[in-house]
Structures are given as structure tokens and as C-alpha cells.
């Protein structure tokens, strides 16, 4: 059965890890653009399910971000909006260096982003 949530991500590992029960919107965009994509969807009535600043590797340090939102559209959720706006603001205070790592490091960034999302998936699927 299809899950009642969807994942917005720029981490190529995520669509590989999740089967077709999951709705994954994979986009080849920046960390900040993932957050903006999420913001746009919140304006359309989706609700935030996982925290957009999950993980301790900062925006602009890791290039990857996965965020979980509801599949259903309802009235715009103000709390979701507050969290995502604050997260977008936070991106700008970190010096951009996510294009400065050695190639093998990106795989590790993908794994960490995936485990952060995985913990949200575990919580969501407990319902």
C-alpha cells in the first residue's frame, strides 16, 4: 500500500533505498532549493513531517537533504511554515563548501542523510 507521506530529496541514494510503496520526489537541485521546494509545497497545503535541519552536518557543508511531508493537502500549516522559513534563513549563515570535498566523501554524505531520513521513516511507519 502507498504510504500517506512523500519525500522531497536531492540525495540519489534515497530513491534507490525506498521501494514503490514510497513516493519520492528526487530532484537534482541544491540543499537550499530542496528546502524551498518543501516550502512551496507547504504553501500548497502539505504538512512538514520531518525536521528540515535534521543532522549535524550543516547546510552548505553537506549537499544532500531529504525532507518528509504529508501526501494530502489541507489548510496551510503555520507551524510547518515557521520551521521551513527558519531553516531556509539558517542556510545562509554557513559558508558554502559543499562542492569542495574529495569525490569519495559524497557517498558518506548520502549515507548520513539517508540514516537521518530512515529514522523519520521508522517513526512514520509506526502509525
Amino acid at each position, binding site marked *: 500500500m502507498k504510504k500517506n507521506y512523500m519525500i522531497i530529496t536531492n540525495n540519489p541514494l534515497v530513491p534507490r533505498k525506498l521501494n514503490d510503496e514510497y513516493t519520492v520526489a528526487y530532484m537534482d537541485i541544491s540543499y537550499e532549493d530542496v528546502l524551498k521546494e518543501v516550502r512551496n509545497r507547504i504553501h500548497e497545503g502539505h504538512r512538514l513531517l520531518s525536521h528540515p535541519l535534521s543532522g549535524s552536518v550543516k547546510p552548505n557543508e553537506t549537499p544532500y537533504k531529504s525532507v518528509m511531508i504529508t501526501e494530502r493537502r489541507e489548510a496551510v500549516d503555520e507551524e510547518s511554515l515557521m520551521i521551513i522559513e527558519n531553516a531556509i534563513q539558517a542556510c545562509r549563515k554557513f559558508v558554502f563548501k559543499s562542492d*569542495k570535498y574529495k569525490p569519495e566523501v559524497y557517498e558518506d554524505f548520502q549515507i548520513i542523510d539517508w540514516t537521518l531520513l530512515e529514522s523519520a521513516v521508522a517513526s512514520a511507519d509506526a502509525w
Partner: protein
Amino acid sequence: MRLEMGHIYIKDIQFAAESKIEDGILYVSEEAVKAVALEDEKIKSVSFDIAKPGESVRITPVKDVIEPRVKVEGRGGIFPGVIAKVDTVGEGKTYALKGMAVVTAGKIVGFQEGIIDMTGPGADYTPFSKTLNLVMVCEPVDGIKPHDYEKAVRFAGFRVAVYLGELARELTPDETKVYETCTIKEGMEKYPDLPRVAYVQMLQSQGLLHDTYVYGVDAKKIVPTILSPTEVMDGAIVSGNCVSACDKNPTYVHLNNPVVHDMFEQHGKTINFVCQIITNENVYLADKQRSSDWTAKLCKMLDLDGVIVSQEGFGNPDTDLIMNCKKIEAEGVKTVIITDEYAGRDGKSQSLADSDPAADAVVTGGNANQVIILPKLDKVIGTLDYVTKIAGASEETLREDGSLEVELQVLTGATNETGFNKLSAR
């Protein structure tokens, strides 16, 4: 619960043929500790080294810092549910080797971090420049998954710390401190006029390299609960995280939690230190709501007058911190929160990702984005290969003269959010 802590001061660490503690000197048999570390077949090799305060030594990438302890009386053993079998700890008698630490290092992921400088400007910021450090660098077997490697290094550190702690079992402590909390009813009767105060500790619980364990349980899967504050002194909480090392609690900080110690200092004098409440910092927003609701509920049920809330980490936990603060204050319980800041390199950005007027009493561990130049040191334990890839650092970090330009973020424990340090900001 009553716990007697015996302190055994370690003045020096030396490698020797036989492991023992004599006249405050810890002699370590390299062969013996290697054997302890290599009990796990996932670790291919391990090397030990000693780093002393003031030496021109840089340790990196640090995974965990652990203070060796041994349980000499009372239920259970050190690190229950992890090394010792599951049993409630926090009463009886425990000895700790003071002035030293076991430091685990090893590359688990490519952007791993954690620097301890034993001298120079970096040493002013990391608290572990002041301890004698027995450093173990673990290499995994080929093809290991990061999850398995993380766990192997985590456990190897605890095994070695417990092995060293055991050396103190028959010694007489240099100093003894007694920590005692009352039951709810006793406390009401004994200190009817003192405000009832608790410590709310938020535990990092987000995923690989972002986890904490309570009696061996992954903190993501707990609901907020109460502990006797003496339980952490026996290793009830251990670290499984090391990303963005400045504001993560290594196991050493859990064992020596400064809020617990400073509250005990006032216990029976100005406050009745009722208990420690632990909660988590999950990624899933409904988990946050449940945990903060429960934390506030526990504060209310315990009839608390005040709490100190400590945070662990950046971003996601800011939301938990503010939710906890708001909800606890709404129950009429006065709240002080401890956090750190990400105000940007110029100090001009908004420090936290969340805020609320209820958070009117804040202690800060400083701005983790502050840039610091770490001069080249004579010796590196571990490898500098990864320093250039850690959060707050990049390939451009290593400068021509061998010095590193980094943010405080990379220094283990530099902006700790349990109030472990003196660093602050205004």
C-alpha cells in the same frame, strides 16, 4: 539513591609490560589493551598512543572521549546494557580515574571531525586538552559498513575504559564525594522550603553518528523518563555521535555531567535536586511533540518549581529546545536553557533556528562559527587526511604553512551545551 564517588588522580600515563596504577601513574600494557580492543573481529588493527597536556600533538578524527571507571560496590557495573549486564546503577560505590581519558579515533565517514589539540589556541577551547589522553586509533576490516564500524569503535572504547577502570578496584581513592538524592516523599519532608528543581537533558537521537544510548537503548526509541542523577555517573548514558564535535556530548561529559554536579552542589542548600529527566531530539516532528508534551507533563507531575534544560546539537534540536522550554514554562515551571550559537563567521546571523519569548533565560556556550587558526603541530595522532573534510572545514582548510583555518565547530567539546566550558558569547 546514594552514590559514593572515589576519585583516583592520575598524574601520568606510561606504556609498560604490565597494566597497573601505582602512585598515581597509570602503566598500560599495550599488548593487553590491544587484545581488549581487538576482541571485536570487525576491528582489523588498533594503535595506542599517549597525548599529554602541553605537548605539540593533535588528535583527530576523534570519535569519543571516555573516563575509566569501576563499580566497586552496589548493583550493576559501568555502562549497563552496553558493557555490563542490564541492572539499575547509581548507588553504592564507584571509582573514577581523574585527570585522564580514553580517546577513540578512527575514520568512519569521510567528512568526520573532532579535533583535540594538546597545545596552542585550539587547546583553550577543547576541554580534553587538559586530560592525559590514551588515544586508540581503530582500523576496520575491509568493506565494513559505516554502521558496523561506528558500533565497533564505540564498543572498543568502552571495553578499554572498563579494563583500565578495573585496575583501580583495589585502590584507596585520593578523594571521595557523596551524591545522594531523596525519594519524592523524603524530599518533600526533608526540604519543605526549598524549590524543587530538576535537570532536563535532551539527547541527540537522529541517525548514524547522531545517536545516544540509555542503558543500551537507542534514545530515538525512548519516551521521556526520569533518572536518579547518580545513574549517569555509572555510565547509564553513552555517546554514539561525533558529527559537529563542538556541541556533542562525548561519554566523558555524560559521566561528568556538569549540570548534575553543579545542581548537587546546591542540593539541600538552595534547591532540592529532585531528578534528571531525559528526552530526545528525533527528526520526526510528531516525535518532538510527544517528547516535549511528556517532558512538560513529568515536570508538572513532579511538582517542580524550576528546571535547567540542556541541548545537544544544532538545527533540528533547536525546535525541541524551544518546544520543551515553552511547554515547561506553560506549566508554571521556571526554565533556564543551555544552548550554543551558529551566528555565522561574522557573528551577525540569527543564532538559533527557532525562538520564543518564553526562552527568557539562556546560557550560551558561544558561537561555533567563530574562525580559529590552528597552527601546525609536531605530531598528529590519527590522520589529518580527514580534517580537511570535516564539518566547518573543507579541502581549502589546510593552509600553505601547515596551519588549519577552521571554525570552532571542529574542536571536540568546544561549545558544549551542558555548560561544560567557560566559553560564552554576547
